[in-house]
């Protein structure tokens, strides 16, 4: 709540033909000056009331005075967790050089993936139209506190195909809750053409939680 309470106004009497400059005008101008100056110049703490925003120093950054101290916005950048490898369920394997990883940001309530998976350690072809389990209720996985909002997220994702010519090669990724409800489940459905592809990339998969 912003405080612009004009407590120094002295109401004139009914039909008062005169204005008292000190009590009815100038005190209010001083009050407005005090309240607005932190926004205009920055760095001034004088006259701040709890809840008032101001431009603090160093910076200046937009801050809020909580009555005793300056409160700055949370650091969204620092809120990202480290990139962590996703545990893959055999016989699917992560792609060397493009390890499937995840990170999350509790301030943004967002999870991001990057990296890719192979059909198996020999990079055999994916089966057209079939759904494959990538990770499930596995310790070290993406925690259930980060399930996609609404319960599930389905998005398109690219594939790299081993042999040309390809007709169409792509995949769909589904992120949802497994039965055990503890860690996120990730499945992919391969939509490639004959010949299959050698990996599915999850670089563009992210969701809100």
């Amino acid at each position, binding site marked *: 709540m912003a405080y612009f309470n004009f407590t120094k106004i002295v109401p004139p009497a009914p039909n008062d033909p005169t*204005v*008292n*400059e*000190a009590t009815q*005008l*100038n005190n209010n*101008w*001083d009050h*407005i*000056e005090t309240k*607005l*100056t932190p*926004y*205009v*110049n*920055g760095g001034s703490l004088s006259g701040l009331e709890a809840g008032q925003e101001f*431009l603090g120093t160093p*910076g*200046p*950054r*937009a801050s809020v005075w909580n009555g005793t101290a300056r409160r700055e*916005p949370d*650091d*969204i*950048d*620092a809120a*990202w967790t480290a*990139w962590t490898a996703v545990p893959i369920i055999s016989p699917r394997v992560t792609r*060397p*050089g*493009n*390890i499937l*990883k995840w*990170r999350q940001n509790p301030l943004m309530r967002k999870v*991001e993936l*990057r*990296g*890719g998976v192979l059909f198996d350690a020999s990079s055999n072809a994916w089966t057209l139209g079939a759904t494959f389990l990538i990770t499930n209720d596995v310790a070290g996985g993406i925690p259930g506190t980060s399930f996609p909002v609404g319960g599930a997220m389905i998005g*398109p*994702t*690219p*594939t*790299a195909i081993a042999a*040309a*010519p*390809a*007709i*169409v*090669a*792509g995949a769909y990724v589904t992120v949802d809750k497994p039965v055990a409800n503890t860690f996120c489940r990730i499945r992919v459905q391969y939509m490639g053409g004959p010949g299959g592809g050698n990996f599915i*990339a999850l*670089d*563009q998969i992210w969701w809100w939680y």
Partner: protein
Amino acid sequence: MGTYTNTLKLYKPVDVEVVDVEQHLNYNWDICDKQFKRLLEYEYVNAPNPDVTEALNASRYYKPYSNSLIAWLPSAGGFWQDPMTFVSDWVDARFLLTEDWNSFPDFRICYRVITKVGGTTSTVEWAGAFQSVTQGPMGFGASQTVIPPDQIPVGVRPNAAHYFTANAGNTAANYAFARLQFNTNGELLFYGYGNTPSAGASIENRVELTDVSYCVEVTGT
């Protein structure tokens, strides 16, 4: 003669002075109106490089775009962007393309960097679209170089290859889409799937970079 407040220059009449409505009251209200306006309203602009001259003269902070972040703040006679919420201007990337590709008219390819000073999670966002320089078929079924190696600046390249599925359009009935590959050497490769799009200047005959973004720092190992 009265006095003026230090910052806003609001006139304060002395007690023996007859109050002039126009000079002693209305002028002060106008000053307050201008100052409060910036606090209560967004400064909405579409330009990627907004003109902040007016804001500078008024020495007020500045809220570009329609978000609620206070992104620009006055500092020492200039304007300064909060490093904790830093978003770069859109950088024109048309000149990175090989001679075989053009930026789509009125939808130039460009990128911006979201980071903070000293931060370790820079995100690069791309936008715009490209098409064959001849506006002809885009040569599906083979990997093609759209931006050659070393062209995407250091700091904007990913530390591990990133792949995206993008709309490649088609004026014919058959669907077509593309796989985009941003490599660590600063190149962008394109691999088309589906039927070759019809030639021409249709908005369907292009590859879009909309919604392509990646974290620069994450490694592949």
